[in-house]
């Protein structure tokens, strides 16, 4: 049995500990907002947080989450209130939308660590997340917009 918390809810699972966290989240926990894109940590569509750090869940065995706090896109906010979600909506970022869960989860760690990120900071934090539709310019704008919101809200 592996026990960890997902979006503040305890999960207790009888699963092969080498199973990638991604597939436990999707197939066992039914949280399908986290996406499969490549399986080899090349695209970032599967990005989740383990204890607040961005992790490519397609290559992280579920055992790595044992006893830890996992946050998925469904746990980013209960009501689209996260500044990044609001900025994504304001900037009309998504096209097909498939990569956006991962983009948001990577950006959330960036903003927590650097509330006022520079373009270089954005490059460093977001380069692991591919978008085939080419929403990068809007992602960049939305992160800057959310950073503005953070400032107005007194930072996090």
């Amino acid at each position, binding site marked *: 049995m592996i026990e960890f918390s997902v979006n503040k809810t305890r999960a207790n699972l009888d699963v092969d500990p080498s199973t990638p966290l991604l597939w436990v989240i999707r197939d066992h*926990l039914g949280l399908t*907002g986290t996406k499969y*894109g490549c399986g080899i940590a090349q695209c970032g*569509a599967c990005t989740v947080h383990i204890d607040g750090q961005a992790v490519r869940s397609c290559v992280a065995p579920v055992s790595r989450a044992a006893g830890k706090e996992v946050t998925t896109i469904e746990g980013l906010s209960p009501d689209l209130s996260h500044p990044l979600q609001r900025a994504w909506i304001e900037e*009309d970022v*998504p096209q*097909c939308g498939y990569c956006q869960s991962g983009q948001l989860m990577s950006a959330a760690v960036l903003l927590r660590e650097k509330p006022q990120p520079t373009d270089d900071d954005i490059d460093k934090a977001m380069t692991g*997340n*591919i978008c085939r539709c080419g929403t*990068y310019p809007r992602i960049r704008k939305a992160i800057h917009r959310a950073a503005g919101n953070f400032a107005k809200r007194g930072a996090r």
Partner: protein
Amino acid sequence: MSRAIHRREFLKVSIGAGGGLLLGFRLAGTGETLAMQNGSAASFTPNAFVRIGTDERVTVIVNHSEMGQGVYTSLPMLLAEELDADWNNVAFESAPVDPKYNHPVFGMQMTGGSSSVWSGFEQFRQAGAAARAMLIAAAAQQWNVDPSKCRTDSGAVFDPSNRKLTYGQLAAAAAKLTPPAQVPLKDPTTFKLIGKPAKRLDTSEKVNGTAVFGVDVKMPGMMTAVVARAPIFGAKVRAFDDSRARSMSGVHRIVAVPSGVAVIADSFWQAKMARDALHIDWDEGTMSSFNTNQMMQQFREQAKLTGKSVRRDGDADATLAKAAKKLEAVYEVPYLSHAMMEPLNCAVDLRPESCEIWTGTQFQTVDRANAAKTAGLPDEKVQIHTTFLGGGFGRRANPQSDFVVEAVHVAKAAGVPVKVVWTREDDMQGGWYRPAFLHAIAGAIDTNGKAVAWRSRIVGQSIMAGTPFEGMADLKGKGYDPSSVEGADDLPYEIPNLAVESHQMEVRVPVQWWRSVGHSHTAFATECFIDELAALAHQDPYRFRRDLLQKHPRHLGVLDLAAQKAGWAKPLPKGRARGIAVHASFESFSAQVAEVSVNDGKVQVHRMVCAIDCGRYVNPGIIAAQTEGGAIFGASAALFQELTFENGRLRQSNFHSFPMLRMNECPEIETHIIESREKSGGIGEPGVPCAAPAIANAVFAATGKRIRRLPIRLSEAV
């Protein structure tokens, strides 16, 4: 905020006592079922495209697939415009497969050819106008006034004394009326929504993880299958050993299917691990010695011969023979993968009397027919539920419905609902690529530096040959595939002696339309060669094009706009250089200026300025998004992408070997839209073709060397 999250998926989340989160949902059948489930059976459904509830919600049923291009917003805007709906109450729903949702021009339900908005422009407006007329009639009856004296605004009808009834209040009464046959449409000068920015309706669910893509579909008792497919096109399973795979945890069944061997298991990971543990003896077939290097060599030899004539103005050969200055160049482009972020997948619930399919498809009618044939059911017993598509780019419009038919075969063997999921490697190595092409072009200028001859020989595989579309495209009659030469056969430059020839090559690599289809390679060849002719004539490449486009005002319009916004004549910082390209496709006109630098053998694209004329547009935000996304899609191919075969095996498998632009490599992009009253053109694809030639021409401006092969390798520049 959640107004868009009213699709046909019902989510029920419960927290299990000891088992973590449980989530199940089902997809209801038709819109009618939904109305009853919502307790709003009194909803007003005047036609196939709209339903108005007593709760004021206006649900637009969209017959095109949402793959990022924005049809779940732009098509509802067309309907809401004529309906005078309150945009805040508008939602979308994907249409079931039904002839009434056929593309009005292509005669089947499908999404492709950058055609959704222009083909729906009258259809959706008419549907909205008809609904509006019935709501007015219902209100006029109630008030006992002349309907022609009533007006509508923001989801309500008003009489001359400003009495008001909302559409929700009128829904039940309007539902009893007979729909009018034809209703006059608005004068475009009075549009309130069309042509104005509006937020996409599908963003909320795409930023909180609730948007349902094909890979997210779940049904009670559903299993997941992963298929071992042929490592070489045309290879067949001779025998397989599944003794280890069968004993692995969660494995339900292992079965041979026409495409390979399917492992059906409780979950994806279990299915994948067992699939990887199979030992399969393949009969490799005739493609086991196939190499793309040899193929391109054959293409080069073929290009020395006269091809099937596609266009002939004047006498290009004679003019070339006696020309003052001439130039020959050979351009080559590789096979390419669509590489949608969501790998292919398809879920099937096959019963003795029915077949329900959930997938992200661009080809509902074709898929239904192919699935029905595979299932041994009549077409009407097969229903397709179109989910969101995690990218399409043409791959999900497969003439053989490869990923759907295979899933039906697996479902036949599974005996339970099953979802077939492709890995990234399966998807990339599964074929149906943009074909490799070679363009051999010869051109000449006269003593005044004016282009006088152009002969282009285009060598490559047909994407239409052998498909049901062969007849539609009249391949046999023409002797060439129009989609192989589109964008080259209608070269707009005024050159008196012009010949375009086609060599159609037979190669047994499955090929298909890839975002912008033939234009994805013809624009590279034609726009690089015109740039080469400009250099031969010692003329500015922008001016040179301008002089030859005097009879093409829409080409000129975008060319001038892109050049002006890019500051074409203004000097750049040291090390930077610009390139330009202009190209028409899908009834739209595009020009792009790329600004690059070249350092340590690496090309960096700093800025791209795009100009687009797509006629009358619906949503400028979506026009800009598609144009910039298209430019990035084209730039990824130009800079990085190729598929190569060695001994029949594809050498690329995932994003490490088939890269695309990432955030740190993405240029600044700006889009400028031409205001136009011309008929709407396409927008999903026209942003792609100019990117490669604009970048390649900028590399020439920076280095003095020509790029004649994609992806760009400076070591190959000449």
